[in-house]
């Protein structure tokens, strides 16, 4: 074999499909006779395939969740950009008001004997409106929960958790009321979601404001392993859709 080996750059350029036709022919001819260059080529191909294989496929429904997040970010950007925990309305108080509204509506209008079509129509319209209130409240609840989870995941261990603890406590109380209402109104998916969130929120609410590293790691692992952020975003998307369809 008289011809010199192609340089690494030439080999890579050819691999990328950017070599000139004459260079391509020269390299291919060379490789047919040169095990060393063929092996180098195979190594490059295998390494690049490995990079490709290492990327996980996003879960089903990923596109919908992305769209929900993007739409929300576009619509709410100015508000989100000045987001602070201190600005949050106490979630428990809001939840109690919503629950009272929904339960009353359901008790008075849906389960009561209906003898008049007009009354029944009015009752359905009323329930629909009040369910929309519930979904809107859950939208806020899930947004606050998501923000808290992100904060917990990213906060350095040295930072205290005073504010997060107060917020988590409020979210636990509100979540239980929402769970009760979701169960009552037959929204089982929301019940499961709220059940999944509660252990993490309770851990923060009941934990020390200077939570130890091991406990923080447990929280982070739970958030990651249970894919809680994704689930919260998906649930948030669903309640927003339901609220929209109730319009």
């Amino acid at each position, binding site marked *: 074999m008289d011809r010199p080996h192609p340089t690494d750059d030439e080999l890579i350029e050819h691999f*990328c499909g950017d070599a000139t036709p004459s260079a391509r022919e020269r390299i291919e001819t060379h490789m047919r006779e040169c095990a060393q260059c063929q092996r180098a080529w195979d190594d490059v191909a295998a390494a690049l395939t*490995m*990079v*490709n294989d290492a*990327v996980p496929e996003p879960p089903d429904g990923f*596109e919908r969740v*992305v769209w929900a997040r*993007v*739409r929300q970010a576009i619509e709410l950007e100015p508000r989100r950009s000045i987001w602070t925990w201190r600005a949050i309305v106490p979630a428990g108080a809001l939840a109690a008001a919503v629950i009272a509204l929904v339960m009353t509506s359901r008790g008075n209008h849906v389960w009561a004997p209906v003898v008049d079509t007009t009354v029944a129509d009015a009752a359905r319209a009323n329930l629909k409106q009040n369910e929309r209130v519930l979904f809107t409240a859950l939208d806020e609840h899930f947004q606050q929960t998501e923000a808290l989870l992100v904060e917990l995941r*990213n906060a350095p261990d040295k930072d205290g958790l005073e504010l997060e603890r107060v917020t988590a406590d409020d979210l636990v109380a509100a979540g239980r009321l929402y769970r009760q209402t979701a169960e009552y109104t037959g929204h089982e998916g929301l019940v499961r979601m709220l059940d999944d969130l509660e252990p993490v929120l309770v851990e923060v609410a009941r934990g020390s404001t200077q939570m130890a590293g091991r406990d923080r790691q447990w929280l982070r692992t739970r958030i990651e392993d249970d894919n809680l952020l994704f689930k919260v975003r998906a649930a948030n998307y669903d309640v927003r859709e339901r609220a929209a369809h109730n319009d």
Partner: protein
Amino acid sequence: MHLDDAAAVALAARGDEDAFRVLVERHSRSVFRLAFRMTGTAEDAEDVVQETFVRAYRQLARFESRSNFATWLYRIGFNCAIDHLRSRNDKETNPAPEVLDRLAPAVTGPTSEDLVFAGQIGARVQQALNGLSEQERAAFLMRHYHGCSIEEICGALGLKTNAAKHSIFRAVKKMRTELQPLVRMRMEGL
């Protein structure tokens, strides 16, 4: 009704939310793959995907219709991922990419037990990607995983042809060196 990218961009730029939704849903997975390769975690990649589309939305009026929307989006995605990485490195105590790079030669190569855990491969790939400069990584990923031409990479990253090519060369060499032990083990069926 099927909308191609150019038509969807034109409608979205005039405020048609459904048209922008078509673009988001069509490209979100490929932007995720790009973002994952850049950041190394699904959570970070999700954040980058969101930020990419939000920035794209704000800049739709600047998109030139003769360009390829996907390439334009990747450029925004790369910038978002780089911003995200810088912000993450500022916040965390994790070693910076250059530190990982310095540590890499000390790794003698995975044993056969390592390969029992598929995650090891992902971790090593990410370590190799972290060892690339931002420019190398961007050019490399655009060329090999998103099918961008050298001209498109030059346009997206503001590079001259030779600089783009050399970034890719260096990136491929580094990836090959870093991943060679795993490649050998896989080829030899260990």
